C-alpha cells in the first residue's frame, strides 16, 4: 500500500466498499436463510447454496422466457422474478423439509450427510435438466450503470437496489418474526418443539413453513446473484462457507449481528482483494474472523438469558 497517497487510499476504500455492497447483500441473505435453518432450527443445511442456485436459475429462465415471448415486458420482469425465485425455492424447501429434514431433527451428523447428498443431487439435476453451461439473466437497463455520488465515488445502481431490498427483507422478517402469529410459532417451535406442540401449535406445519421461508430467502439471494455473475450448477458452493461465517461472527439468533457481520466481512473482503491476491485476502479475512471469535466466542450480538 506504500505507493498510494492518503487521498487515493480513501477513494479506493470508499469505492471498494460500494462495489462490495452486492456481495454483502448476498452474504446477508444467505446468512438470513442459514440464521433460520441453522441458528433457529439447529439444522446444518449443506444444500443451502443450491437454493441460491435455484433462485438464480429461476431468474435466468424467467428472463429468457420474457425476452423471447414478451419483449415489451423486459424492463419490468425483475419485479416479478424476485418473488418467483422466492416461491420456487420456498416450494422445494417445503417439500425437502417434509420428506427429508423432518425425519432428522436432533441427528446433526445424519442431517449433515443427508443435506450434502441433497446438494449433490440438486447440482446433478441442474446439470441434467438445465445444462452445465453458465447462464445469465438479461438485466433491465435501469439496473445497469452507476450513480456518481461525488467526483471520486461511483455507486453501482444494482448494488443500491440490492441494498434497499435487503434492508426491506431484514426489516420485513424482523416484523414477521415478532409481530405475527406465524412468527411467534416459528420462534416457539425452534426453541422447544415438544413444548410448542403441547401448547396447541402444529409444529410439523410450522417447521415446513420455516424451512421453506429460509430456502425462499436463499432463492432471492440467487436472484440478486444474477446481477453480479453468471450462474452454473455449482455456483453456490463459493458462498456457503462465507455465509456460515457471517452467521457465526454475527451471533446465532441475532438479525442485527447478521447485518453487521455480513457488511463487515463483505466490505473487508472487497477492500483487501484490491490490495492483494484473492487467496491472501482470504487468509487475512479468516485471521480477522479468528480474532473476533477469540474475543466474542458467541458472536458479536448473541442473546444472553439465564440458562
Amino acid at each position: 500500500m506504500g505507493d498510494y497517497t492518503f487521498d487515493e487510499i480513501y477513494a479506493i476504500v470508499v469505492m471498494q466498499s460500494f462495489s462490495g455492497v452486492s456481495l454483502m447483500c448476498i452474504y446477508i441473505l444467505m446468512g438470513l436463510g442459514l440464521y433460520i435453518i441453522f441458528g433457529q432450527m439447529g439444522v446444518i443445511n449443506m444444500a443451502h447454496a443450491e437454493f441460491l442456485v435455484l433462485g438464480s436459475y429461476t431468474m435466468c429462465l424467467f428472463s429468457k422466457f420474457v425476452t423471447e415471448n414478451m419483449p415489451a415486458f423486459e424492463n419490468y420482469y425483475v419485479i416479478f422474478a424476485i418473488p418467483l425465485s422466492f416461491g420456487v425455492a420456498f416450494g422445494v424447501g417445503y417439500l425437502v423439509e417434509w420428506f427429508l429434514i423432518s425425519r432428522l431433527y436432533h441427528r446433526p451428523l445424519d442431517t449433515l450427510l443427508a443435506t450434502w447428498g441433497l446438494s449433490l443431487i440438486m447440482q446433478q439435476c441442474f446439470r441434467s435438466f438445465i445444462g452445465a453451461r453458465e447462464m445469465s439473466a438479461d438485466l433491465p437497463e435501469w439496473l445497469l450503470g452507476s450513480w456518481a455520488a461525488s467526483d471520486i465515488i461511483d455507486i453501482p445502481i444494482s448494488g443500491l437496489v440490492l441494498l434497499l431490498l435487503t434492508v426491506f427483507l431484514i426489516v420485513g422478517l424482523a416484523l414477521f418474526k415478532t409481530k405475527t402469529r406465524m412468527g411467534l410459532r416459528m420462534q416457539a417451535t425452534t426453541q422447544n418443539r415438544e413444548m410448542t406442540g403441547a401448547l396447541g401449535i402444529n409444529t410439523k406445519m410450522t417447521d415446513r413453513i420455516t424451512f421453506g421461508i429460509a430456502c425462499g430467502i436463499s432463492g432471492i439471494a440467487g436472484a440478486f446473484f444474477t446481477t453480479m455473475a453468471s450462474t452454473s450448477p455449482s455456483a453456490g458452493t463459493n458462498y456457503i462457507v462465507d455465509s456460515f461465517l457471517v452467521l457465526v461472527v454475527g451471533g446465532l439468533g441475532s438479525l442485527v449481528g447478521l447485518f453487521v457481520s455480513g457488511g463487515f466481512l463483505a466490505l473487508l473482503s472487497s477492500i483487501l482483494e484490491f490490495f492483494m491476491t484473492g487467496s491472501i485476502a482470504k487468509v487475512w479475512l479468516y485471521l480477522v474472523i479468528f480474532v473476533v471469535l477469540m474475543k466474542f466466542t458467541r458472536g458479536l450480538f448473541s442473546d444472553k438469558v439465564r440458562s
Partner: protein
Amino acid sequence: MFHINSLNVSYGESKVIENLDLELNKGEILAVMGRNGMGKTTLFKSLIGILGCGSGSSIKMEDKELSSEPSFIRVRNGLAYVPQGRMIFPNLSVTDNIRTGLDSTEEKSVPDYVYELFPVLKEMGKRKGGNLSGGQQQQLAIARALVTKPKVLLLDEPTEGIQPSIIKEMAEKLKTIRDMHQVSIIVAEQVLSFALTACDRFLVMEGGSIVHSSDRSEVDAEKIKKFLSV
C-alpha cells in the same frame, strides 16, 4: 369427563406404565403422588402426546378419543400441560410466552384474568422468560397453559424448586383456577402438604401402576407418606 383406560407406555422394551385406568370428574383436583421414577412424568407426557402409548390404550376427553392424536389436537380438545421444570421459552418475552398458548383459541391478546391471577406477569411483560426466577417461571407456565382454555390441566411437580413459603399460596391459587375456569386438574406431586391443601382425591403411583387411592374425606396422610419415603 376425562377417561384413561388400559394405558401402556414403554421406552423401547422397558414398560413404564402398565394397564393404568383413571377417571377425572369435572372440577376435580386430583393428586398423583409417588417417588421419582415411578412413572408420573411419563404418564403426563403420554397424556399430552409427547410420548406415544401402546396398543389398546385409550385416552378420552368427553367421548373424543385422543390416544392417536398429536399434541396440538389434544390441546385443541381441552388438555393443557405444565411440565416439570416449566420449559418456558427462554428467549421470548413473558407476554410472547403467554401468547404461544393463544394459538388454539380465538383470542388475539392476553386475557385480563391472567394478570388478575398473576399480577407479576404484567409487570414483567417485556422481560425475557429465561430471566425470571423459578417461582415467576412457574406462574408463567401455568398462565401459558391456562390461556389455551383447558378442560383438564396437567401440572407436573409445580412445587419443584419453589420457595417453601409460597407453596401454600400456590395450592390456594390452584383452587382459585379450578373455581374460576371450571377446569379439572391433575397434579403430580411429592410434597404432601401441598397436595393435602389443594387436592380432592389422591392416587399413589409405584412401578407404573396405581397402588393407592383415597378421597379427601378418607385420606390417610401417614400411609401416603410411607409411599413417598425412600
